[in-house]
């Protein structure tokens, strides 16, 4: 599957990574200013932006990769890390810490994280700088009938040893229920 991700990555249009990094950085910094450094609100906004990206991005992802329906949540996570992150960010996160019921796991982003380059966050424990990724995953998974809680538990920007996103599958939505925007 990684090889397929590589092949697709070679054929997609790319932008300069510094342009990408700095654009994202400017968005976060501007949000911090707009919300007067209320970092909870900034996280919410990033999550909402990510959600809106995710519910659209999934279409792009499916058409590019031709991915088929996954049999289990485990397989879904594998597709996310080996194809999803590969195709859009050219990184391949590791999957760790599966819970015994197979409904939650951690995605560990590899270093260097393309979003984090040059960044030193303000001295706070509240801001999750890459929160947009959580929103994207949540939005994209919702569009394929998976209701998943996504949140950060560790971030190297805060001095943690790794950047870790926790995924928790709540339930599989019924097909006929359309996912509405909130």
């Amino acid at each position, binding site marked *: 599957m990684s090889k397929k991700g590589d092949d697709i990555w070679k054929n997609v249009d790319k932008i300069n990574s*510094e342009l990408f990094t700095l654009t994202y*950085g400017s968005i976060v*910094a501007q949000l911090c200013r707009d919300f007067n450094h209320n970092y909870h609100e900034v996280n919410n906004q990033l999550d909402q932006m990510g959600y809106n990206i995710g519910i659209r991005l999934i279409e792009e992802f499916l058409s590019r990769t031709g991915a088929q329906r996954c049999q289990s949540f485990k397989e879904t996570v594998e597709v996310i890390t080996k194809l999803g992150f590969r195709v859009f960010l050219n990184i391949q996160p590791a999957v760790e810490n599966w819970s015994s019921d197979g409904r939650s796991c951690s995605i560990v982003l590899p270093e260097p994280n393309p979003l984090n380059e*040059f960044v*030193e*966050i303000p001295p706070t424990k509240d801001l999750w700088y890459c929160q947009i990724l959580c929103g994207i995953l949540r939005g994209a998974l919702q569009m394929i009938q998976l209701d998943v809680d996504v949140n950060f538990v560790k971030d190297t920007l805060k001095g943690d040893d790794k950047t870790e996103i926790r995924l928790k599958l709540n339930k599989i939505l019924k097909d006929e229920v359309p996912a509405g925007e909130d």
Partner: protein
Amino acid sequence: MTSYYFSIIGTRDNPVYEFEFSSFKNSLAMSTSTSVPGKSQFSASIKEMLPFISNSSLDIIEDAQWTTNLFYLGKIDSFYGLLVNAFITQGNIKFVLCYDVSNGTTQKYDDSSIKQFFIEANDLYVKCLLNPFYSVNDAIVSPDFDLRLKLIAKKYL
């Protein structure tokens, strides 16, 4: 052992960063003395004057910047045995380095190593500027910047 005072001055002549240190060269030979390697040895009366000395060279820097197309302006001023070298960035931020030569040593001053120090300090400054949470003319408080600058100082001065 030469003492140095390095300061970064913003576009509105505001202080952005300052750092005092002494030459790390020969610090092994000197380690028998009581001094901590890298600790500056300016006398107290000079020490309080240092920000004034570097700021007083700003006029000269602003004149000198139009006479050359280089960013490194060389030695531009001296003040009672303190020499002042300057560097100006593309964004009109000034780097000023004051150092004393009256400390009894006959050490040769290697202009090219100071130049190299400025160039790498500039690289470091640009990296700092790329941080989305930093804006021009803010004071630089990042400990990482501090550490890296010390490494550069150790390497060249």
